[in-house]
């Protein structure tokens, strides 16, 4: 076993590192199961060339992919025309996926830390040794402190169900996902109002689109972004509320540079006008909406004039928007948004959005404008391996759900609270952290605190593809095969079943999460929760009720069970209707109606610190990808010319940005495309891991600035509520 000290150096494009080359060379002597299987299926010809269908994982949209393979290498990725999320196209990240698979910084062998945590010195180990160590440490923690002392966290992915088996089988309640950093506000609001986590959108007949944030043309969801452009090109009116002139705003019919944190004021005023002037779809509202009678009275306080004072948007504009929205009738769409972790009042913003949609009756538009069925709901009867019931868990969740946060669903959780609980030791001290496909070090606000929390852990194991920042601080790194090299459980989209399958042999010793979880589970005494021999066995068990042959699915990549979508309009709320008035909220002591919560505002001389997305990266996951690094804009702090002039700075000058919890030095981009009271920092940069040789120390990390705020209702983060000062450096 060799010591592997990860020094910083540059590598040329698509060259494998020495270790992996050796592994590949050795592997070349062994039979190539993936290639053999694909040849048998007729997907690869005698030379090993051909196309294999699979699914992307460069973001969570999971477009269908056709991977072009030549001589056992992926040479090109194409969108699968048969997949509803790609429709034959892939965004920059999807196209670049092979550069992640062939990234020289891939972790290809299990690693065990040597030296101090964060020192970056690991030794290679066998799977047996690494898994034995991990299991023994986890069991040790379980014995000494109880299962609950083990935190499990993973950003949602296709193997989540088996991750959860580890979690629940082990008996820990402490489940961290990225959700509270992202969409708790949206999901909670729509669950309460519509009874779905995330209603699906359909742009076929839309005529008026109101985007609150949701920078769809940069936070690209391939098919939805394309559909939006199609609608705009067709003549649909697009209104964008955003303090920043994003690329989506650039394509909008109208850009409203609204004051951050005040979206709900504008939306409530729109609702007010619509109900006051009786512009809503009364028939629909009467039939399907709870609270329609009292709504006008409730909303009457939110006048356009009042909203102007809050938002900075002229009252006449607000009135006009309300009229235009209403005039589109069932062809209006107030987009639910996605990452809605902006302000504490983002939950209310989402409630207002849900209400606006309810008033339009757009659910009735054929195909949806906003369909009540969530895209995640399937109705497809998938099988699963048998398993026993989970052990009863009595310990409180560290994240305060539901005992401090009664309205946050267990599935969503509050990730940042877990981190804080680790620091505080309240209600009890966590001792171990098992992380998979996640980078909490970068993702959770107040990075210094997260690193401190890591310091308090007795044991950290991370399942990862690259030596990401959290892996860098791990005690054990378990190499997952990249998405082009592995099976995952099937994905159901639009009622159809899609397969992810390996298109090349897994490089080095990397393995699928399905097998990592199983092998670890067996050592934890949880073998009964992993009753599958291998990935294919798992998949066959999934497909059994459908009567689909896995071999057939490998060829086409998709299976259509022929479900007919129901015409029935169903809202899974307590009342069975759209609960604009929510008794659930009232019972918990909150406003039953969408309401105005005055947001915090920066002091004079301070700026709102905005965050967002870029089309060339996925949050903090892709900065090491050389193809994306080539096409990215250099990370900058956006600053309005008035603010820049005051400080005597020009584009590319260094400034110091200081928040209540941290300070960074970053180069500016002076631009008109932002409100003068705002700055925007390109997110996802400033990696700490020297194992990411392209991304290391490139740019700065916004988690070094963000203050941790948690909405008491939805548990969501409030990333734009951090205010900063900016000085010339």
């Amino acid at each position, binding site marked *: 076993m060799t010591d592997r000290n990860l020094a910083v150096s540059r590598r040329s494009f698509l060259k494998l590192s020495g270790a992996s080359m050796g592994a590949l060379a050795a592997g070349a002597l062994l039979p190539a199961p993936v290639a053999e299987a694909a040849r048998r299926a007729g997907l690869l010809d005698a030379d090993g060339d051909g196309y294999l269908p699979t699914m992307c994982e460069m973001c969570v949209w999971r477009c269908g992919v056709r991977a072009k393979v030549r001589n056992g290498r992926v040479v090109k990725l194409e969108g699968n025309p048969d997949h509803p999320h790609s429709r034959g196209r892939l965004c920059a990240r999807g196209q670049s996926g092979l550069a992640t698979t062939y990234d020289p910084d891939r972790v290809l062998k299990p690693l065990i830390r040597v030296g101090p945590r964060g020192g970056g010195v690991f030794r290679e180990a066998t799977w047996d040794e690494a898994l034995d160590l991990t299991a023994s440490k986890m069991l040790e923690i379980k014995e000494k402190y109880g299962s609950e002392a083990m935190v499990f966290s993973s950003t949602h992915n296709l193997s989540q169900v088996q991750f959860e088996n580890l979690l629940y089988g082990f008996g820990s309640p402490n489940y961290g996902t990225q959700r509270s950093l992202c969409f708790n506000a949206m999901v909670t609001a729509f669950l309460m109002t519509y009874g779905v986590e995330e209603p699906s959108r359909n742009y076929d007949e839309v005529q008026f689109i109101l985007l609150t944030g949701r920078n769809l043309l940069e936070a690209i969801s391939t098919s939805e972004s394309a559909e939006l452009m199609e609608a705009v090109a067709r003549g649909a009116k697009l209104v964008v509320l955003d303090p920043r002139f994003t690329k989506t705003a*650039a394509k909008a019919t109208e850009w409203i540079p609204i004051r951050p944190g005040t979206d709900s004021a504008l939306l409530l005023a729109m609702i007010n006008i619509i109900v006051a002037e009786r512009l809503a779809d009364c028939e629909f509202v009467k039939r399907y909406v709870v609270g329609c009678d009292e709504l006008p009275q409730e909303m009457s306080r939110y006048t356009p004039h009042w909203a102007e004072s809050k938002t900075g948007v002229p009252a006449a504009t607000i009135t006009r928007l309300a009229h235009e929205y209403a005039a589109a009738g069932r062809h209006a769409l107030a987009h639910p948004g996605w990452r809605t972790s902006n302000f504490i009042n983002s939950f209310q913003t989402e409630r207002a959005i849900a209400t606006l949609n309810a008033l339009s009756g757009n659910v009735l538009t054929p195909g949806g404008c906003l369909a009540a069925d969530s895209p995640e709901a399937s109705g497809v009867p998938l099988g699963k391996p048998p398993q026993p019931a989970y052990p009863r868990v009595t310990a409180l969740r560290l994240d305060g759900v539901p005992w401090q946060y009664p309205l946050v669903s267990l599935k969503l959780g509050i990730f940042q609270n877990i981190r804080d609980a680790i620091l505080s030791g309240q209600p009890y001290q966590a001792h171990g952290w098992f992380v998979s496909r996640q980078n909490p070090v970068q993702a959770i606000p107040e990075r210094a605190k997260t690193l401190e929390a890591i310091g308090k852990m007795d044991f950290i194991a991370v399942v990862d593809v690259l030596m990401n920042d959290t892996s860098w601080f791990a005690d054990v790194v378990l190499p997952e095969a990249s998405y082009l090299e592995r099976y995952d459980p099937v994905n159901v989209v639009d009622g159809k079943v899609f397969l992810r399958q390996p298109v090349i042999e897994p490089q080095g010793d990397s393995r699928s999460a399905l097998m990592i979880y199983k092998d670890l589970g067996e050592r934890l005494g949880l073998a009964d929760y992993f009753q599958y021999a291998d990935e294919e066995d798992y998949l066959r068990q999934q497909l059994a009720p459908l009567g689909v042959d896995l071999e057939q699915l490998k060829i086409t990549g998709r299976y259509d069970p022929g479900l007919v979508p129901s015409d029935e309009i169903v809202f899974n709320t307590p009342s069975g209707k759209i609960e604009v008035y929510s008794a659930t909220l009232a019972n918990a002591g909150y406003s039953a109606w969408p309401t105005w919560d005055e947001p915090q505002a920066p002091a004079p001389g301070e700026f709102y610190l905005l965050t967002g997305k870029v089309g060339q990266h996925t949050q903090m996951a892709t900065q090491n990808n050389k193809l994306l690094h080539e096409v990215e804009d250099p990370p900058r702090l956006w600053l309005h010319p008035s603010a820049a002039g005051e400080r005597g700075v020009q584009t590319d000058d260094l400034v110091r940005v200081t928040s209540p919890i941290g300070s960074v030095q970053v180069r500016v981009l002076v631009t008109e495309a932002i409100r003068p009271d705002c700055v925007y920092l390109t997110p996802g940069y400033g990696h700490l891991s020297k194992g990411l040789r392209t991304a290391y120390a490139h740019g700065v990390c916004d988690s070094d600035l963000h203050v941790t705020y948690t909405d008491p209702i939805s548990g969501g983060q409030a990333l734009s509520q951090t205010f900063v000062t900016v000085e010339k450096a």
Partner: protein
Amino acid sequence: MAVKKRYGFVIDVSRCIDCRACLVACRVENNVPLGYSRIWVKDLGVQGTYPDLQHGFVPHNCMHCQHPPCVEVCPSGATWKDPAHGLVLVDTAACIGCRQCILACPYDARFTNPETHVVDKCNGCIQRVEIGLQPACVATCIGGSRLFGDFNDPASDVSVALRGARSLQRLDFTQGEIDTQPNIFYINGDVQDKSIAPHAPQYTAAESFWRKFAIPAVLTGIGAAAIGQAAAFTKQLLDGEKEFEE
């Protein structure tokens, strides 16, 4: 007789969202080394003052001109406008790497590939088009901005787009006897921005010397020699053949 193809691009300027998927797709499809590119998305920048702003993007690649200045200066015939379909192609094995074509292009569409040592440029993904696929950039365009097809086919994507266009521009370059007549048509947007305007072809001193001096000089020299010998030969014939000298 079948009408020949006229392949080209239509770019709907209003639909480019600067996602750069096309840039990545082209690089992967055509093994373009990092630091170089066959295609670009030109950023026109944020125009106007807050809050009345515009921000446009112009996808751009080799124009596959009707009258390509690059083809004219190639010493080895390594680049040509294919008579079957109009794409301007490069036979990299025949290229001697003189770079005259790179300098002659008004659109800076060509570059020296550091790995192959010879010229590289957009080839319309002819290797894909031949098997019925779209060029890589077009196939993956999220906004639906990039279109490709045969202008001589009224049912092609490009012909349909042109018919439905609200506005139409080309980045034509005309000067003297040069009139490139590019085969990229920009619709629904204004691309007449000096940041992306084409420039006059640069003809190197060597190429000008070759064309204006070396060729006439050599032809004159050979011509003189030929004429001289022809005259001598004529004299010889008139004098009759002498077996023996007197």
